[in-house]
């Protein structure tokens, strides 16, 4: 590989096998032998063939497969089911199959010998196509053909040394021995990388597991990782990274229930976060999940809905009854409902199915309804492991996820803590029965929401024909009230309100009456005043008239006196 940075890393040859490169931090040690050991039926041959085929197809590294057990035709037939066309690759000079047939009955030892013939065959195969990868499957078969162990051991040691010198990345498969990794102790000779495959049946469920026993010069995942043989080859889980370093989004998306959004200070869930809805039976978990899915589709996002309890048709019918029509989204291709029984597959198979569908559908939102059913196919530890991987994967992909989980009534919180899911998810919404006197009501509360403040109330909600509606908080004398108590409280409040209204009206009427009385009095007084005024005015006029008449009369008298000449004396009394 192109490994020449400041500090040269151990060069690695990526296997191209799902997940294996993540665990090994990039692949097998390049140019060195790797021992792949395991008991019968583990898929050793398959894994090594896939290593070669992927090497050819993805990294353009031709390969040589030296098979000691199966003939070229058998091998080719065995891996056809995985879509590997070995014959074509051979024809393209990308692959060489060499079946080394060692039959004890044909071989007689007559003196000193070595395995130079094998070296020459291998060297010739490698040089003829410029191979970079070699698989020896299973070299231990040599031990059944030759009796001189000392020669075999020194020759095998020499072979590995020689392969190293040739710089080819080699996988050597070996059968698991009693108390040792391989029957013939090959691990002594291959010290660079040892991978152990294991096939275990626990509770009638077979799980294949892979562990890297050692990897010289490199860090690697040390756990046992489940792996599967799928129709696309081997898939090692996790298919995710081992680190916690995914990107985060600040964007907030709606839960699909307006009232529920309001319970979060930011009005919804962070995009790419994971949410768990727990609740006892019949608390509308699925309805909440479907509302979330429908809301995602309404935003134009793709949503993948895994239903472990209901068929798609049943789910759609049931959701239609609460006003959630999922049909159009399915028709638009925005919503994909994948329904299967949890018991159909083992946990790992489920995980792989999830991965595959997510890979194909590329959704922005994923709903799993419910995760608690998976416990039926695995122990709690295994389920936790699987969910960790799944949630991790979804987070890395930036997919907003919502899971529902059924919990039994009493120990609701404890149970989920045991399963360990609660610590994995970012948001935990709990729906439950609020059982009062003679009735059950549904209440929703938020137990945790990483990265945003949230309401601490238990909000009652009803499932109506138009979906889920959160009711306003009603506080009665004994705290928050729900259901019939809510009605009672409402009626009481109404009665009080009516009484208050009536009181107000009564006062209004009183006031009106007083005003009328007052106005009547005012009118009376005014009339009285008017009559007095009129009388006074009339007497005033009469007085004036009289005064005029008197002054006229005086003038007339004065004029009469002046008409007589010389009568001055008559004027004098008039002036006085």
């Amino acid at each position, binding site marked *: 590989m192109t490994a020449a940075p400041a500090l040269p890393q151990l060069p690695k040859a990526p296997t191209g096998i799902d997940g294996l490169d993540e665990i090994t931090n990039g692949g097998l040690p390049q140019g060195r032998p790797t021992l792949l050991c395991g008991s019968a039926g583990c898929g050793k041959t398959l894994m090594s063939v896939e290593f070669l085929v992927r090497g050819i197809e993805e990294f353009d590294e031709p390969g040589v497969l030296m098979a000691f057990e199966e003939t070229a035709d058998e091998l080719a037939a065995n891996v056809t089911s995985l879509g590997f066309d070995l014959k074509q690759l051979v024809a393209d000079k990308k692959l060489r199959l060499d079946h080394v047939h060692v039959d004890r009955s044909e071989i007689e030892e007559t003196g000193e010998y070595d395995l130079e013939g094998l070296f*020459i065959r291998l060297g010739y195969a490698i040089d003829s196509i410029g191979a970079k990868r070699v698989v020896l499957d299973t070299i231990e078969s040599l031990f059944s053909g030759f009796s001189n162990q000392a020669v075999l051991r020194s020759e095998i040691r020499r072979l590995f040394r020689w392969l190293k010198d040739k710089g080819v990345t080699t996988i050597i498969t070996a059968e698991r021995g009693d108390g040792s990794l391989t029957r013939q102790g090959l691990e002594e000779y291959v010290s660079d990388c040892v991978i152990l495959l294991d096939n275990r049946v626990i509770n009638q469920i077979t799980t294949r597991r892979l562990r890297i026993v050692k990897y010289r010069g490199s860090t690697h995942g040390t756990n046992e990782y489940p792996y599967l043989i799928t129709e696309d080859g081997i898939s090692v889980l996790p298919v995710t990274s081992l680190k916690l370093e995914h990107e985060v989004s600040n964007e907030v998306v709606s839960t699909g229930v307006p009232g529920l959004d309001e319970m979060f200070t930011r009005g919804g869930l962070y995009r790419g976060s994971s949410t768990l809805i727990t609740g006892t039976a019949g608390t509308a978990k699925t309805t909440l999940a479907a509302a979330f899915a429908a809301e995602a589709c309404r935003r134009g996002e793709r949503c993948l809905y895994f239903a472990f309890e209901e068929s798609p048709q049943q789910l759609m019918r049931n959701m239609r009854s609460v006003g959630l029509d999922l049909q159009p989204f399915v028709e638009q291709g925005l919503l994909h409902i994948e329904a299967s029984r949890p018991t159909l597959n083992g946990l790992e198979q489920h995980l792989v199915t999830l991965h595959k569908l997510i890979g194909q559908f590329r959704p922005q939102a994923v709903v799993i309804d419910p995760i608690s059913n998976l416990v039926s196919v695995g122990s709690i530890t295994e389920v936790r492991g699987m969910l960790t991987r799944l949630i991790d994967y979804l987070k890395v992909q930036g997919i907003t996820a919502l899971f529902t989980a059924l919990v039994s009534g009493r120990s609701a919180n404890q149970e989920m803590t045991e399963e360990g899911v609660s610590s994995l998810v970012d948001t935990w919404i709990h729906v439950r029965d609020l059982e009062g006197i003679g009735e059950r009501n549904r209440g929703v509360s938020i137990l945790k929401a990483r990265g945003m403040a949230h309401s601490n109330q238990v909000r009652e909600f009803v499932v109506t024909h138009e979906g889920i509606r959160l009711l306003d908080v009603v506080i009665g004398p004994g705290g928050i009230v729900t259901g019939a108590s809510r009605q009672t409280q409402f009626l009481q409040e109404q009665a009080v309100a009516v009484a208050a209204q009536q009181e107000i009206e009564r006062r209004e009427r009183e006031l009106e009456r007083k005003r009328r009385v007052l106005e009547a009095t005012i009118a009376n007084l005014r009339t009285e005043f008017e009559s007095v005024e009129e009388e006074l005015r009339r007497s005033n006029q009469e007085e004036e008239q009289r005064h005029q008449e008197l002054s006229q009369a005086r003038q007339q008298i004065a004029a009469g006196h002046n008409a007589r000449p010389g009568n001055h004396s008559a004027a004098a009394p008039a002036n006085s």
Partner: protein
Amino acid sequence: MEPEQAPDSAGPEYVLHLFITGATPNSTQAVRNLQDICERYLPGRCELQIVDIYQQPELARAERIVAAPTLIKKQPGLVRFLVGDLSDRRRVLSLLGLVPDPNDPYLHD
């Protein structure tokens, strides 16, 4: 010493192919041993072919060679792979269906 003649001997009675790897000690020893056997026991009755698989590596695969040196007895009888430098003269002779010659100096070493 050689009582029976092959009745239908269109070709040689013995067809022996020896595959060696250059001039390694085992290979030279095998060549020496085989030539001695042929001269002593099978004069004129054997077709001996010595192949250096360093020179013809493609033959190694075709002839299913794993160890070296390997003597393949193609005829008579079943195909047998005689692996090693052929120093175990008695064993070689019995595998080839030959009766040991008491004068053979290599029989007792």
